[in-house]
């Protein structure tokens, strides 16, 4: 048994135990907890593409949409029939939900493949816009598919997403990304980011690594989409637009590109922040103009982005290792 796998198992056991008490959690906090989990999955998976592999994608919400719609369609159209066939029961229901999530993940991975392959020749700005375009094309396609509600949106009957599934997905996403990046095999991602020409000269098939980053990233975005759909119980194509992608990009940049712990922290921070801002905006003591400005969190996010790029392009939470060493020295 090695350490990463042990950590994963211990964490899964912990959330499994915790999920027994999820009924006791105040619905408001429960909502935030789940959203944090989903945002961790999204941020960590996008970090593989944007952070470690250096391929700037602005279409993560598109993959999320694919996952959300595929899994929702499974739940709505296929699961009732299968449930009837196997006699029902809550275990069967949970299994089918997991199946729907994975199907959503694979659907999104397929979309990731479709985006990854033609995007290979592109870099930086171009890639960003093309992935943005792909995300929008996915949105328009969903909008034009009446079977899944088109532009009216789609309601999902059951609220299946719970603490356990959400954080299981988060743990798996983190495990997969960290494992890949910390193996000789997965270091190809970093080489592609640093210097594609040199990477090729070292025998790295840069194409393979780029596509792999896109596919793995999209898979987890799809899982996150499924979790989101089965939590909110209503999805709408507009909910997976460009701005949603930007939300995820902000998580990655704030956390630090290629810094998984930082991205996890940023996912937590950026999920709580709007709640805090809402409370702040309700304060009568503040001037009206400030309260108005606070209500639009994107103003703060955009200023944060610009400010970070000007002063700390490596992200808010880089240098974590330094603090850890300092702390360890103090302990010793």
């Amino acid at each position: 048994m090695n350490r990463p796998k042990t950590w994963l198992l211990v964490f899964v056991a912990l959330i499994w135990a915790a999920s027994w008490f999820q009924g006791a959690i105040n619905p408001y906090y429960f909502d935030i907890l789940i959203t944090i989990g989903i945002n961790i999955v999204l941020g960590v998976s996008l970090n593989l593409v944007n952070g470690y592999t250096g391929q700037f994608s602005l279409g993560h919400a598109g993959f999320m949409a694919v996952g959300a719609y595929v899994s929702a369609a499974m739940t709505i159209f296929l699961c009732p029939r299968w449930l009837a066939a196997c006699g029902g029961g809550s275990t069967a229901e949970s299994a089918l939900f997991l199946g729907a999530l994975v199907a959503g993940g694979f659907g999104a991975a397929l979309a990731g493949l479709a985006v990854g392959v033609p995007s290979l020749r592109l870099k930086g700005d171009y890639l960003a816009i093309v992935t943005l375009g792909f995300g929008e094309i996915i949105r328009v396609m969903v909008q034009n598919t009446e079977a899944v509600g088109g532009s009216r949106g789609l309601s999902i009957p059951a609220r299946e997403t719970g603490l356990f599934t959400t954080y299981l997905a988060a743990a798996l996403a983190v495990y997969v990304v960290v494992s890949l990046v910390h193996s000789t095999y997965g270091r190809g991602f970093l080489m592609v980011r640093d210097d594609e020409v040199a990477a090729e000269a070292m025998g790295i098939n840069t194409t393979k690594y780029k596509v792999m980053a896109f596919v793995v990233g999209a898979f987890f975005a799809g899982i996150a989409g499924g979790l989101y759909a089965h939590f909110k119980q209503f999805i709408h194509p507009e909910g997976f637009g460009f701005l949603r992608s930007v939300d995820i990009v902000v998580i990655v940049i704030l956390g630090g590109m290629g810094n998984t712990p930082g991205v996890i922290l940023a996912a937590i921070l950026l999920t709580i922040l709007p709640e805090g801002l809402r409370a702040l905006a309700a304060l009568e003591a503040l001037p009206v103009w400030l309260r108005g400005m606070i209500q639009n969190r994107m103003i703060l996010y955009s200023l944060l982005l610009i400010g970070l790029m000007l002063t700390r392009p490596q992200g808010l939470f880089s240098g974590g290792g330094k603090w850890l060493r300092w702390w360890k020295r103090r302990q010793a």
Partner: protein
Amino acid sequence: MASLVEKEAGMSPLLEINDCTVAFGGLKAVSELNLSIHQGELMGLIGPNGAGKTTAFNLITGVYRPTDGEIRFDGRSIVGRRPYQITARGIARTFQNIRLFASLSVFDNVRAACNMHLRHGISHALWRGDAFAQEEKAVEDRVMELLEIFHLDHLCNAPSTGLPYGDQRRLEIVRALATRPKLLLLDEPAAGMNPTEKQELVRLIRFTQEKFKLAVLLVEHDMRVVMGICERIAVLDYGMKIAEGTPEEIRNNRKVIEAYLGE
């Protein structure tokens, strides 16, 4: 010399470039180049600035595709192969403007170049079983061994781009060797070095070639370096090969003198 023995025995060359031309628009950067390198040979490629030396390198390593002509390595054509495939066949290179992986440490730069020879793929990296751990360990040992040979082991955790210039050049050579090449291409390894460093470099190249039983193709400006170690030298000017021979022959070749000094 080994290579001469081979040639006399009629062995086919390791690398064979036949009538290769690279044109950018109307400009022929390399035209009708013929070049062959034998197993274990140390060959030099010289020429004035802009003569097409680096283009020839990019041609061999698959960065450029020849407009015309044929390149064979180890008996098989490599025209149209992607650079990583050519590296896999056994050609490694260094770069004129050093291209280390900036975010990787010295150790990881070399380790990354071992990637190609791994038998284990994505599932092993995720499962992290015993076989995977053993292979990772084997790679680490090999990297450490290489770094020790080139006296870079004490720097293994340093960020690669923070090294002194000479060490960076050496690291690039180590990194190239980690791909286990049969032919090593060195693109101006002595650029920016002082005389002492150059002497050290000459020693290093010779040592590397003997230790790893390599063929080496060396592009270099510094005549003393080239004349000092190369068994055979080819001279390029305006994309064409104007001479080839032993250092002695090249030194006395009229065309070469004209190309360098002008008429």
